[in-house]
């Protein structure tokens, strides 16, 4: 209750920071009507089975959206707009969201950063041995923490973290003041600084204030920046550093870009790939390089390598030489590239749709602001090495982790294309608000196992009692939708250069896509992955274990033993079941029994052909033995 009052009181203060005169009065009237509506809806649905907490969070997001709308449409003289005020608003909003994140324990790499902070504070060292031994005293709230795979071990058995220590070091002041919440507020401060720098960058590049005000809320209060600004990851501080570095290079102010790049490479070694290109661009702009400048650049690149060596015993930390050859695997590059664009769980199109406009800006390269071109080009080498990685999607983290650093520049592209993109902004804004409400209300759902499904696909599958996930592109478990979406995106991007789609047809096209998707999802698909949400399981367990490290490297499945069953929508006719079973199993599909011969081992897969009399809901039962059932694929005639 107290937190709710605090949040809504904070949101009530935002208009005072931004609006005056007529904008203030109009906003107040609209806000009052919104409150009346919400109260009336709450009264009318008192007896309905509704998630009240989600409703409250959604209302807060709607209020923030209303504020953002007025920020965009109000007359210039009625808005007190500046980069500093934008930062202040961002800080207030992030501060309001932090308590929501504390509903669930911090996860992914977050607790490890905090463990290092605690070690620095209490032990003045980076050795985490006693932290692991005394997890109950840690503010991480995670008694299950173990050293991560690849964590360096010292000569005398010291346990170090694989993560670079700068972020942990920066969290110390906040941690000392308020523990974990203090650390999160520190992250929010970085988010506010990023917001400020982004607005300043827009001003530097000649983006009109009106456009900035319209786009700013979608950037600062939308994924991925919003979520990484209220959680302990280096992505938002890194984005801030890069924006400042690009601004410094553009303004030819070495005193700005050199420290920014220095901090960037110290944050994470992988950002060295960005720094290399940016330094090259900065130095190429000068006709000659002095010895002093060369020494500074050398120091910039050498320092993180030295730090990594001192901590882990290896200058490249956990990175290996073979990773340099990764871009040669073009198939993997394509997979990662399109995955980052259109994957349902980890792609821009579904997780941060605003930045799709920035993708369209790429084909108008020469017309884009110089800051956009400099920022995106400096990320080229980084993306080239990111895309072929098996963990291109970010691993166990909120979506778009590895490309959060690119978002301010994609946002600049969006702003440059603002007038052309007006028609698509309303659906983008609504999708963004929905993503934020979902992530704030259910922060644990920001982490999704790399199973080929997404939170949206699972939710729709349960609602529609059919496989909706197959209609959502997945590059983690490659499906037909992924190939179709990739081709469609390329065609759309190229066609947009020459063809202008009538604006009034965009929303109906979206409606038709949703409608046909709903119809298709209710029909049986050609392929059933037995671990998926649309399959109703009675007994059995997921394979591999849900928190298995590098889970995406396994073939997923569902382990069944005698007495377990599952039901799903399937197509009639011949299908092939792929499975693995040490000892074999006897199964029943509908009223027909069949045998799964032993395949040898856990990773040895076999296939059995089965026949279904008709389309419809089918039950698969395990009568004896046990098997790991991967998928059932309808045989094409």
């Amino acid at each position, binding site marked *: 209750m107290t937190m709710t009052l605090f949040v809504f009181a904070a949101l009530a203060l935002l*208009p005072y920071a931004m609006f005056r005169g007529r904008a203030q009065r*109009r906003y107040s009237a609209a*806000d009052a009507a919104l*409150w009346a509506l919400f*109260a009336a809806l709450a009264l009318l649905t008192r007896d309905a089975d509704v998630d009240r907490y989600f409703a409250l969070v959604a209302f807060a997001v709607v209020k923030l959206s209303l504020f953002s709308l007025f920020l965009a449409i109000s007359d210039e003289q009625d808005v007190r707009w500046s980069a500093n005020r934008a930062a202040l608003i961002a800080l207030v909003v992030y501060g309001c969201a932090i308590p929501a994140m504390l509903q669930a324990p911090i996860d992914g790499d977050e607790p490890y950063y905090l463990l290092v902070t605690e070690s620095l504070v209490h032990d003045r060292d980076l050795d985490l041995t006693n932290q692991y031994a005394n997890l109950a005293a840690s503010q991480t709230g995670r008694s299950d923490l173990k050293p991560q795979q690849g964590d360096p071990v010292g000569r005398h058995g010291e346990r170090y973290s694989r993560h670079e220590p700068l972020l942990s070091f920066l969290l110390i002041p906040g941690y000392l003041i308020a523990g974990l919440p203090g650390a999160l507020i520190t992250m929010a401060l970085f988010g506010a600084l990023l917001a400020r720098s982004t607005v300043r960058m827009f001003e530097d590049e000649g983006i009109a204030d009106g456009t900035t005000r319209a786009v700013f809320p979608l950037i600062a209060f939308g994924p991925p920046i919003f979520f990484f600004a209220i959680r302990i990851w280096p992505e938002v501080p890194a984005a801030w550093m890069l924006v400042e570095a690009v601004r410094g290079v553009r303004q030819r102010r070495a005193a700005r870009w050199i420290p920014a790049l220095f901090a960037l490479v110290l944050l994470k070694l992988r950002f060295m790939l960005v720094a290399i290109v940016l330094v090259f661009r900065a130095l190429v702009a000068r006709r000659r390089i002095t010895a002093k400048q060369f020494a500074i650049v050398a120091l910039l690149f050498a320092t993180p390598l030295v730090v990594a060596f001192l901590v882990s015993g290896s200058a490249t930390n956990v990175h290996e030489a073979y990773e340099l050859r990764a871009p040669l695997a073009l198939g993997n590059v394509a997979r990662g590239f399109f995955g980052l664009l259109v994957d349902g769980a980890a792609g821009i199109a579904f997780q941060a749709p605003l930045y799709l406009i920035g993708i369209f800006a790429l084909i108008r390269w020469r017309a884009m602001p110089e800051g956009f071109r400099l920022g995106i080009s400096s990320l080229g080498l980084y993306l080239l090495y990111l895309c072929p990685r098996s963990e291109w999607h970010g691993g166990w983290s909120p979506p778009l982790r590895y490309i959060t650093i690119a978002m301010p520049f994609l946002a600049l592209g969006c702003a440059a294309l603002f007038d052309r993109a007006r028609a698509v902004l309303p659906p983008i804004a609504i999708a963004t608000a929905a993503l934020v409400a979902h992530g704030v209300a259910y922060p644990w759902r920001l982490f999704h196992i790399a199973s080929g499904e997404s939170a949206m696909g699972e939710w729709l599958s349960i609602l529609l009692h059919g496989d909706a996930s197959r209609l959502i592109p997945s590059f983690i478990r490659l499906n037909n939708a992924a190939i179709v979406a990739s081709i469609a995106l390329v065609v759309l991007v190229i066609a947009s250069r020459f063809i202008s789609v009538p604006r009034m*047809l965009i929303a*109906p096209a979206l409606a*038709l896509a949703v409608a046909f998707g709903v119809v298709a999802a209710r029909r049986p698909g050609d392929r059933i992955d037995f671990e998926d949400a649309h399959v109703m399981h009675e007994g059995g367990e997921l394979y591999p274990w849900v928190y298995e490290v590098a889970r995406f490297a396994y073939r997923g499945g569902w382990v069944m033993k005698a007495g377990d069953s599952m039901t799903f929508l399937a197509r009639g006719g011949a299908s092939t079941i792929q499975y693995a079973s040490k000892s074999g199993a006897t199964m029943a599909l509908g009223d027909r029994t069949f045998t799964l011969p032993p395949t040898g081992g856990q990773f040895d897969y076999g296939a059995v052909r089965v026949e279904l009399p008709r389309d419809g809901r089918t039950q698969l039962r395990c009568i004896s033995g046990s098997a790991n059932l991967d998928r059932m694929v309808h045989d094409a005639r």
Partner: protein
Amino acid sequence: MTRAATNIGWLLAAAASAYACLVAVPGTTPIDRALPLVALLVTLLAWSAESTAVQIAVPLLIVAAIAVPDERLRLLTYGVIVAAAFARSLFSEAAIPVVIAGIALLRWIPLDGVVVWREALILFGALLVLRFTRSVPAAVLVAAATPLFPLKALAFPFLIAALAAWLPRRFRVWAVVGFGVAVVFARYSFAAMLVAAAVAMWETEGGLIVRRPGSAVPQSGRTISPPSVLLLLLIVLFAWSGAAIHALPPALLVIVAAIAIVGRLSPIVAAAGGLTLLFCMPATTTFDRTKVDTALKPSQSLTIDVAPSRRVVVTASGANVSSMRSGTLGTIEALDAKQHVIATRPIAIGDVADWGFMRREHLFASRNRLPHDPSWRLIGYGAESWFTGAGRVTIDAARHIETLRITAAPSLPRIASLQIESVELPRR
């Protein structure tokens, strides 16, 4: 794009939107089945506002149709989405399409309940109201409040249009006051019409609102006026528009005006008011309900044994009593374990009403009013929806009540009866 190409684009958009709703939305209720019509109306609103942003309501409606299984919540969600689209369109210069869309939403759903020639007359009258008031909320509210039956009631929008056209400016404020006061004293079935009349006088050009010549948009800019807010709240409830327009207490307009005025002062005040409403809503006492469903003829009695309780709520209504403005329909006697009468409570018009008095065929002629504590049992959808006249009559006693004896009044007309629907005891 040429104008012809643009219009073709809009027609295609309307067709595609309607088709998408037809394909995707399960026809669970008449409102769900009417979504293709709603999609057409949303496109009409978008066209009138020249705003493609309004069209986003269509995919949102489809998402709501599949994502919200609870019927009441789903239909309310439709209302919120359509109201948001409507809010944007209220500021458009093309007022006629907005009025048509508003009337269609509030009066033409479900489609099979539409009496075409009557609705055409009402629409024509509403357009006349628009002509002379230059106010979309006034025109739509007048149309929404016009009873479909009897035929003479269809004159209402024409009367309002005439008033707006000829009433001298200096009398308009008095007309607003007069209509407002009349709501208190007039028949309940006229309340909605009187509120609509007051709104029309309020909104008439030259009265309290000044508009640009030839425009429906207030000169002061894009103002969210109390009548607009009232209209939008009705749009939110379009799934039960028939019941909402008549059951919303006239005091709602005062509340809306208060919120709109106070809200203009400060967002903190708005927030404080909203939070107060939210957190100070009366906690619901849950009841154990036992169905009775018995009709009592005059002088007939019914005895019901109940679990010992100091409070009992009887839900009752009348049959064939819609012409009664006041009077007693029956009596409840509470008896203790020893069958002594420990409390008595009359059941009068006002506590309950005729069960079907709010049906659109009967409301105009009815003398009943909404009970003090209505059961809020809703029947039907859209313009055909209505609240039953059942009221919850509470009887309290100092000692535990163990038996209820309910007797229909001997003075009831021969054809009338007292209908006992249920008995409720507070859950411990």
